[in-house]
């Protein structure tokens, strides 16, 4: 187990360098005239242009730029955004709110999809099963660019149940609506997978044994069947959590939440290379860690899985 974790961590180092390299190359190739993009409509004088080019090494070849960047990164300096802010500071500002949003969303998603999935599996073919099937299909078919503004309009503005926008220090309550919007996508797939997995396990021989032992129906389901059924669901939860942590670009933009997605969206539109790479690098690490945790969770759920 220990050796497995070490090996995975070493793999993560390689993946990290590979990923940042690709992202760096992509933003580099995408750069047209970042200085003009930064200045907007205003003209830039030649001397300003020279000074800025010098500061950001914009005239150097790609590999040299990447080298400068990596040198900074490895010494703990994430660099400076083209707007002059320290990228490290921006991360510290953006992360907490995205993190909270992601955690609320994933908790909502897991609680709703697992309970609803189990119930529709027990009464498969019944009214509840059919209604959830219909709802999940509708949710799956609805892009978040439609869902988020609709939720904001209905619950945030017309009914006024929740604040329509959130700030950096938003309370859990203010983050509930955007989190729910984010959760819906995860719910749809997680619910279907839970249901299928539980249906499959209900037919297993060990369920018959558990019933022959005179256990209550509730115990058979929630103790014996559920743990066996959760294994495929955990994979999905991991992927979803990684996605949520990376910030929901659309949702954060619509609810005006200054999180990671919000910043990345802005950085891309202003061609702010260092900022994009800075955020994405951290995202890569988070994805890798979440995936490692998921793999370790498998072993915790299913003793037959042992990592060497």
């Amino acid at each position, binding site marked *: 187990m220990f050796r497995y974790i070490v090996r995975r961590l070493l793999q993560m180092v390689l993946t990290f360098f590979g990923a940042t390299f690709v992202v760096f190359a992509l933003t580099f190739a995408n750069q047209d005239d970042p200085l003009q993009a930064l200045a907007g409509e205003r003209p830039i004088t030649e001397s300003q242009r020279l000074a800025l080019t010098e500061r950001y090494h914009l005239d150097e070849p790609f590999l040299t730029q990447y080298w400068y960047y990596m040198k900074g990164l490895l010494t703990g300096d994430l660099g400076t955004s083209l707007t002059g802010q320290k990228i490290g500071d921006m991360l510290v500002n953006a992360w907490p709110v995205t993190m909270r949003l992601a955690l609320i969303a994933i908790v909502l998603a897991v609680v709703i999809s697992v309970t609803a999935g189990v119930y529709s599996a027990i009464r498969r073919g019944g009214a509840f099963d059919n209604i959830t099937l219909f709802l999940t299909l509708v949710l799956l078919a609805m892009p978040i660019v439609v869902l988020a503004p609709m939720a904001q309009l209905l619950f945030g503005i017309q009914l006024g149940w929740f604040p329509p926008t959130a700030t950096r220090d938003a309370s859990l309550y203010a983050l509930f609506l955007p989190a729910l919007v984010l959760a819906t996508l995860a719910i749809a797939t997680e619910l279907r997978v839970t249901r299928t997995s539980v249906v499959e396990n209900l037919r*297993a*021989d*060990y369920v*018959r*044994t*558990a*019933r*022959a*032992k*005179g*256990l*209550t129906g509730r*115990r058979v389901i929630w103790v*014996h069947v559920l*743990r*066996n059924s959760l294994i495929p669901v955990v994979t999905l939860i991991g992927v979803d959590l990684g996605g949520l942590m990376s910030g929901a670009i659309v949702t954060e933009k619509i609810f005006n939440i200054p999180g990671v997605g919000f910043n990345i969206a802005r950085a891309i539109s202003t061609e702010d290379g260092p900022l994009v790479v800075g955020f994405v690098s951290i995202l890569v690490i988070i994805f890798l860690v979440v995936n490692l945790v998921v793999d370790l969770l498998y072993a915790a*759920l*299913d*003793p*037959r899985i042992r990592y060497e």
Partner: protein
Amino acid sequence: MTVTKAHIDVLPGADPRAPLLEVNDLHVEFRTQYGVAKAVNGANFRLAAGETLAILGESGCGKSVTAQAIMGILDSPPGFITKGQIKYRGVDLLGVAEEQRRKVRANQIAMIFQDALSALNPVYTVGFQLAELFRIHRGMSRKDAKKRAIELLDQVKIPAAKTRVDDYPHQFSGGMRQRVMIAMALALDPEVLIADEPTTALDVTVQAQIMGLLADLQKQRNMGLILITHDMGVVADVADRISVMYAGKVVEEAGVYDIYSRPAHPYTRALLESIPRLDMKGQQLNVIQGLPPALTSIPQGCAFNPRCRFAKDPCRQDPAPPAYAVAPQRTARCHFFREVLGE
């Protein structure tokens, strides 16, 4: 341990002097989208304490379904008990409320299954799965329940029970897993044990050990044992009486000696003739021609008539042959049992 069987009054109305288990005219059908499959069509038998009754038959003859109906773990839907009685100590279990019925399982009637690897939950330790019985049915603490689990593993002769209690099912060998199943079934001292092909998934030497263990435990506890099998060899060694099932009916019931020496039903006879024997080396093996009937369309009259070499006109017409008393304690559902016996 101060809790004894008498303190746990799980089934009100049970009369200790009534027969241990009686199945009368049991009918079970499965309602599927392809039609109604009549899996059990009037099964009858009795089981006394300390007795071993073997239920013998081909796959699909309704023997496992009968067992599940007795346990009350039939998947319903699609399975439905349409008629009959299952009497335990005089109480018809089919009329008992589910909450009461649940307590009968494991406490009074327990069951072990064919393939212990799939019948045990793969994600919990065997200790957990054993201790669970004591925690749920006896309200014991985790610690006491685990202690009992270790004792049980000892009783079924699992070496180093103290350490093995924390192992998972996949860490045991096939024979050891079946011992764990047996320990689980016997945990709450049931009076009836139903063993559904307990040795089919095991190799021959281990089969003998498991059957020996079952026989020992049965003797110690004076349990009634229902042994469901298609293996005539296993039956000859341990059974007191045999019920031969065909297409959901008990076609012959008799003591083990009578069945082997003078079968009264053509099906039983055909089964016995199809056992490979060493002195028949080089000769063609006798087989029963044809296939068992589809349960959705059981032939009129005697269900065995299309495959039977004794069949005559009455066999092909309803009503099906009744259970003729061939001798005391011995029945056969064949109009021509005298011919079968006498030939």
